[in-house]
């Protein structure tokens, strides 16, 4: 029992690691931050895998052909800027370790500029998306012609009818796609012929509404019935100030012949189709962008202190710790860029 005292004449000091408390704590913070990203990425993974490949009764494809395609080249350049800022960060540390104060300031400033550029580009990308009707709430309804233009720009070769199927839901109908047996007749057909909306658009609207009339309360494909002016009340900009729900009720109550004008009201009101792609895109890039923004502030403080001559070789670990955070943000972007933009 008492052998312990005699067996250990020397004192073990496991507490003496070479690294500073700050460096260890930053690694721990990185672990916990990584876990937060893993939470979001896990959600992204599940939602994306379970998203249907093509329009179905319960959902949109992950990124429908008519949604705004992302500009890979521009975002790739932005990624390049972030990698540059990562290498300038290690250069700053190396300069400090070599006793090169001017180099430290120069490289810190470059790192900060790189980060600021990255956030600014992200801001530009977001505003561009919002301008095109893609928000966290979903995708704005576009008309078939715009959808065709966007689809062509993204390199897909859908026919107009296929595109309408993507937008309004694929429905089984009799006849061939080119000569469907369920073409509307009567008053609706007149309306159709009067050119208010296209053949495919009318067809799918008609079928979608009929599905609901058959007491099938499952949601039909997003597009017309399942537009949403989501979340925050008053986001529609309908001239009459109707909410998304009121518009929907109006649509369901309207005579078939009147529905075309209701749909146009929806478009005017900026109704959106809820989309998991949109939700994930904004939350993931937003969370990452927040990290970059925080990093830019962090670097800014370091830069001011560097101009005051606060850093020497002896306390270079302060720069190293900031670098750890910055490289972690870069590392996460490698993952996000691959998962969101490339795959």
């Amino acid at each position, binding site marked *: *029992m*008492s052998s*312990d*005292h*005699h067996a250990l*004449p020397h*004192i*073990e*000091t*496991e*507490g003496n*690691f070479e690294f500073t*408390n700050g460096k*260890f*704590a930053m690694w*721990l*913070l990185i*672990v*916990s931050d990584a*876990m*937060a*990203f*893993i*939470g*979001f990425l*896990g*959600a992204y993974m*599940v*939602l994306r895998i*379970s998203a249907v490949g093509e329009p179905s009764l*319960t*959902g*949109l494809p992950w990124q429908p052909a008519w949604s705004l395609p992302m500009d890979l080249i521009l975002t790739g350049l932005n990624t390049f800027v972030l990698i540059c800022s990562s290498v300038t960060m290690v250069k700053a540390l190396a300069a400090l370790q070599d006793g090169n104060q001017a180099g430290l300031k120069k490289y810190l400033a470059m790192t900060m500029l790189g980060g600021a550029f990255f956030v600014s580009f992200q801001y530009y990308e977001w505003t561009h998306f919002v301008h095109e009707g893609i928000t*966290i709430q*979903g995708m704005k309804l576009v008309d078939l012609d715009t959808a065709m233009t966007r689809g062509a720009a993204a390199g897909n070769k859908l026919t107009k009818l296929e595109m309408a199927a993507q937008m309004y839901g694929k429905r089984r109908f009799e006849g061939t796609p080119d000569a469907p047996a369920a073409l509307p007749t009567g008053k609706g057909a007149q309306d159709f012929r009067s050119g208010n909306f296209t053949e495919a658009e009318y067809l799918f609207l008609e079928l979608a509404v009929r599905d609901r009339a058959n007491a099938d*309360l*499952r*949601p039909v494909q*997003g597009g017309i*019935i*399942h*537009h*949403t*002016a*989501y*979340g*925050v*009340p008053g*986001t529609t900009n309908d001239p009459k100030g109707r909410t*998304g*729900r009121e518009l929907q009720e109006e649509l369901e109550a309207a005579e078939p012949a009147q529905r075309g004008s209701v749909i146009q009201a929806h478009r005017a009101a900026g109704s959106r*189709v*809820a989309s*998991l792609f*949109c*939700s*994930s895109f*904004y*939350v993931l890039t937003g*969370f990452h962008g927040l990290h970059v923004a925080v990093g830019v502030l962090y670097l800014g403080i370091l830069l001011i202190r560097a101009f005051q001559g606060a850093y020497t070789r002896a306390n270079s670990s302060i720069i190293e710790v900031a670098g750890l955070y910055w490289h972690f943000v870069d590392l996460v972007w490698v993952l996000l860029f691959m998962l969101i933009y490339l795959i």
Partner: protein
Amino acid sequence: MHLLEATDFNVTTTPWLVILGLCVLMALVRLIAPKFYSHYLWSGDHKMIGKQFLVSSLLWAVVGGALALGVRWQLAWPGSEVPGFKALFGWPDGGAAPEHYNIMFTMHASVMIFFVIIPLLVGAFGNFVVPLQIGAQDMAFPFLNALSYWLMWPAFIFMAFSFYVPGDGAGAGWTSYPPLSETMLGDGQTLWCMGVWFVGWSSICGAVNYITTIVKMRAKGMTLFRMPLTSWSILITSILVLCATPVLGSAVTMLLMDREFGSSFFVPAARVVSDAAQATGGGQVILWQHLFWFYSHPAVYILVLPAMGMVSDMLANACRKPVFGYRPMVYSLIAIAFLGFVVWGHHMFQSGMNPALGRTFMIATMMIALPSAVKTFNWLATIYRSQMQLEVHTLCSLAFVSMWIIGGLSGIFMAATPVDIQIHDTYAIVAHIHYIVFGSTLFSVFGAIYYWYPKMFGRTMNKPLAYTHFIVTFVAFQFTFFPMHVVGSRGMLRRTADPYFYGNLQGMLPVNQLMTVAALILGAAQLVLAINFFWSMFAGKVCTERNPWKATTMEWNTPTPPVGHGNFDVIPEAHRGPYEYADPDAAEDFTPQFQAPAGSAKPVPHAH
């Protein structure tokens, strides 16, 4: 809905304004009374922060306890007004309406878990005890430590406000499963999310600090395997917090996004959320359950591991014997923590999860019984044939071990999928969780309060009152929670405002009334603790002895109470393992870690 629109501005800004007001108030105090400010408010001293956590958690326990009594009241006298609730929460029905019942059980669990148990174990005792036990002068980052306490305050404010907004509070259960938590109108649920978010930040700040402190700042000679089990358990718990809490953070962020900004992570197809038209989002409700339990199952161990550590310390001290199997105790802590990460699905057997996964989770869950049994038998072996000193903390530790056995055994039953399908969402589950979290954890906290009180405040608590508190609490506890096993296995559902609506449950009213009366006594007994705690702080018997319990660990090598910022008036050094009781070679029946060996003046005694 219109209610929501009309009041949107007020509810979302008022808590923020109150937080701002708190900041201004703190700044004013800093100007007017800087010493008071740096000693009692923004103190970097781990001992003061521990006391801050202790006092605020005990105050929140009053709220959580009142809500629990509200729940019990409804189960005994359904549809009647709970006394005082009309005035307390401003509910015209005094808590009789089913939606208020939902709010009561939701907030009871949320308050007890996030504001009472976790801050008590990790925040209060972790803070106070760990640096003293490992021989550090303070935590590694005093600022971060203070931040981790003051981040609790936004959480306090959000949760407190959630009772007074349209909708009267969060009522989707503490698990907040969507779609209910998404469709719940009113801002209570949103404020709940904000509160949990801030609690998460507080926990993470604390965890980073504990791990760094324990890894880097141990005193000379304090090797990892000379650390007392309290410090070990806080280290392991902090690792759990560090890896699990952020996942809850991201889940709650997504829930907030869904509720406030119209994303659709957890919005299933064909659901209507806050005035929106039907969405084809097709979000995944089970995804929330996975992410939530990925945090909340490890959180169950966050709720009990530090209690295990403290009980090990107190039992060794009370029994005057070394903890039986110190290293297995450490290894089983690690094993429980690791297994805690791979068993969360046992909360979801009924969720429609893949059945193959259910089987995997069932087996993993049953494996936790192994390290748990190692711990249990080691405690029993520590107690076995010991000369036990029947102090109050001894009684509390014994209560811990025995309640842990009962709660742990019912846990094994629940781990089996077929049994769980039978008793899922019944009072059997409620009995299990309360045997662990009240029966085990809270009794160990009571014990820890009595044990470390002299070191904290330099006074001892009144013994007769302490014994009274323990005995009444223990007996009332059994009458409150044991019958829940019975009514639960006979099918009484939890989270049901008026279970007697169902014919098969009508016969259970008398048992429930018995449980409620016992619960009222249980609640009243806590007044004794509160009186004893606050009265002794100012008028208790002064204790200046460094080591009143004749304990072996490092915290008893400081002045009582430790004076000022910085703990030790001697250079702390550990010379041996933490539990050198009953050493036949030693003069006394205990040899503290900090006592230098007899021949220590010679560096190498057996050199020649």
